[in-house]
């Protein structure tokens, strides 16, 4: 099939209101404007309004998958709603060619008192699929979901995992869209179900233009061909997936979930400090760490662990004295440890380092420096994974 353009977004903007009462009043105004047929394209903000989306422009062809990323409140779900035809843009226009399918609300139309089987028909109907098609694939849906005999139990007795698996099975098996919108729905179920989901989405992808919203950079890196980074409603970046993810992670330096750096000493360590010959390296570079540790008594068989964390707090590299068989015996008084870390074949970016000094059992720490130091690998080598071979 030739690569025809299925989604065209031209200078689209959308404004929202922060204040409830004013928002309701603007609702009345907007409806009146619509009914009176007056000119309604607007580039100005009324009081208490802000731009949820500002001047978004892009195109997507059949078979392409666009990852839509950005921090919370950046405008991703709003853009999906506009593409789905649920809201009108306040400026610009959107052209959708073909049938739209959306996996945004999985259990749409479900009534909890009715059984899973009955709800399958309701949900499929809400998604616009006629009953005869559902009859054809009913068994396939039930098998895919893995619900088994519980299909005839009221949905209110299902676990949340079961509900979500049922919703997902219905949605992916009944629709055959030209435009597919996915809103953070791939993180459902156990590993086995998830791999079935990826397969299913993969098959839908072949014939559709897909827009995928997610906070999981792993999934975006795995599935998407291009990515669009939104920041406070604006297009911050549009292009290569790895570059987009990089910019998203770099911009996201104030994430609340990240733990604050700290450094603590415990008896018998009295004081400790770390010195680095350098913290800016090239790809494949080496860092020499000098640790000065002052103890009140000897610590034989101490264990040292040095993990490297990437922006998503995943440990991407580590130096572990136990694993390499390096014996460390600390004596009473001042000790100097010199450790060579490298060569570091890490892609360009920043990595935070922790240094943990444990006793010989590994259960008690004596000195713990957490993410106080940051290594910067220059950006000449990029890619999806942190460790780059070759």
């Amino acid at each position, binding site marked *: 099939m030739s690569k025809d353009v299925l989604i065209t977004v031209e200078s689209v903007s959308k404004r929202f209101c922060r204040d409830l009462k004013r928002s309701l009043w603007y609702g009345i105004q907007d409806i009146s404007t619509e009914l009176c047929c007056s000119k309604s394209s607007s580039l100005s903000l009324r009081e208490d309004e802000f731009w949820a989306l500002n001047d978004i422009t892009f195109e997507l062809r059949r078979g392409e998958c666009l990852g839509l990323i950005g921090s919370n409140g950046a405008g991703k779900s709003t853009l999906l709603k506009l593409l*789905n*035809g*649920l*809201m009108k843009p306040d400026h610009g226009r*959107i052209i959708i060619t073909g049938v739209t399918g959306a996996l945004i609300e999985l259990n*749409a*139309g479900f*009534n909890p008192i009715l059984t899973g089987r009955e709800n399958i028909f309701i949900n499929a*109907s809400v998604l616009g699929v*006629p009953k005869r098609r559902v009859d054809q694939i009913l068994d396939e849906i039930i098998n895919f979901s893995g619900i088994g005999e519980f299909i005839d139990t009221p949905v209110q007795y299902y676990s949340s995992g079961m509900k979500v698996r049922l919703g997902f099975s219905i949605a992916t098996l009944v629709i055959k869209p030209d435009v597919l919108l996915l809103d953070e729905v791939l993180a459902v179920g156990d590993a086995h179900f998830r791999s079935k989901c990826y397969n299913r989405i993969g098959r839908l992808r072949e014939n559709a233009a897909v827009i995928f919203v997610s906070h999981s950079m792993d999934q975006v890196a795995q599935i998407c061909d291009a990515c669009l980074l939104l920041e406070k409603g604006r297009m911050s970046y549009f292009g290569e997936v790895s570059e987009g993810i990089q910019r998203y992670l770099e911009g996201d330096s104030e994430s609340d979930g990240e733990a604050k750096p700290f450094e603590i000493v415990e008896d018998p360590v009295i004081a400790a400090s770390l010195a680095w010959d350098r913290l800016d390296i090239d790809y494949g570079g080496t860092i020499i760490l000098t640790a000065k540790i002052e103890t009140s008594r000897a610590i034989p068989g101490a264990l040292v662990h040095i993990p490297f964390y990437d922006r998503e707090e995943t440990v991407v590299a580590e130096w572990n004295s136990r694993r390499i068989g390096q014996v460390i015996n600390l004596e009473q008084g001042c000790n100097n440890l010199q450790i060579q870390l490298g060569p570091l074949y890490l892609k360009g970016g920043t990595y935070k380092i922790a240094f943990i000094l444990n006793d010989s059992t590994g259960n008690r720490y004596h000195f713990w420096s957490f993410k106080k130091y940051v290594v910067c690998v220059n950006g000449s080598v990029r890619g999806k994974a942190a460790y780059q071979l070759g």
Partner: protein
Amino acid sequence: MKRILTNPKTLQRIVYTPESQLRHPLKLLRSMMYDLFASRELAWRLFIRDINAMYRQTILGYVWAFLPPIVITLTFVYLNSQAIFQVGDTVIPYPAYVMSGTVLWQVFIDALNSPIKLVSSSKSILSKVNFPREALILAGVGEVLFNFLIRLILLVVVFILFNVHVQASACFAFFGVIILIAMGLMIGILLVPMAMLYQDIEKGLAVFTGMWLLLTPVAYPPPTHGLAMHLVQLNPVAPLLVGTRDLLTVGTLAQPVRFLLIAGITFGLLLIGWLIYRLALPHLIQRMNA
């Protein structure tokens, strides 16, 4: 907002813009008819869903559909018999008179409440899935008719008990019921945009409809003089209700011109209500909490 350009050989193409859909009235009309047609299966599914779920968690089941008219009738019969509230003579035995009035009033009220009720309970799917919204209205009409048919059985039983003879004009009474439903639906659908934004509408409706029952000749014959007569004359439901009951029991229609005029206006306003519903929904979805 959207213009649908279809060509059987190529894919459907939809364009979303900020401008009002009224600028392209023919395309708007075409998409309205298309959606009405496309929504029939979904409307049926939603109707079945709600009927199934409605009584599944009760012991008495469909008995609950009978109870409101029985209770209202018994109340008025009691008040009348005790001379607390005396209405004078009615053409057919009083209990049958009240029961038939109540069943007709109930069908109007059900139709009045159904659009707001269904749109309100569907907020979450409205804001996440794009489906033909006419389905919600049609499903509501289905429920109204279903409840009416159950109560009709009750009415037949009462008529038999009190030896009331149904006239030949009863088949026209059926149209009266349709117009009553249409009027309730019309008011309900016109109120949907405001009701979704401001909760005053729902609260106000609950208060107002209680009073409206008493201002309509449901439990008493139409007054012939005084303030009451003028109020009843201003009440648009009164001629429909009284007329339908008369067609059923008496055989003649007291004010045919008024009846037909109100019927015509009702259907006209119903179509306008549908148009407003359709144009307003995207703006409402944006502001709904779902």
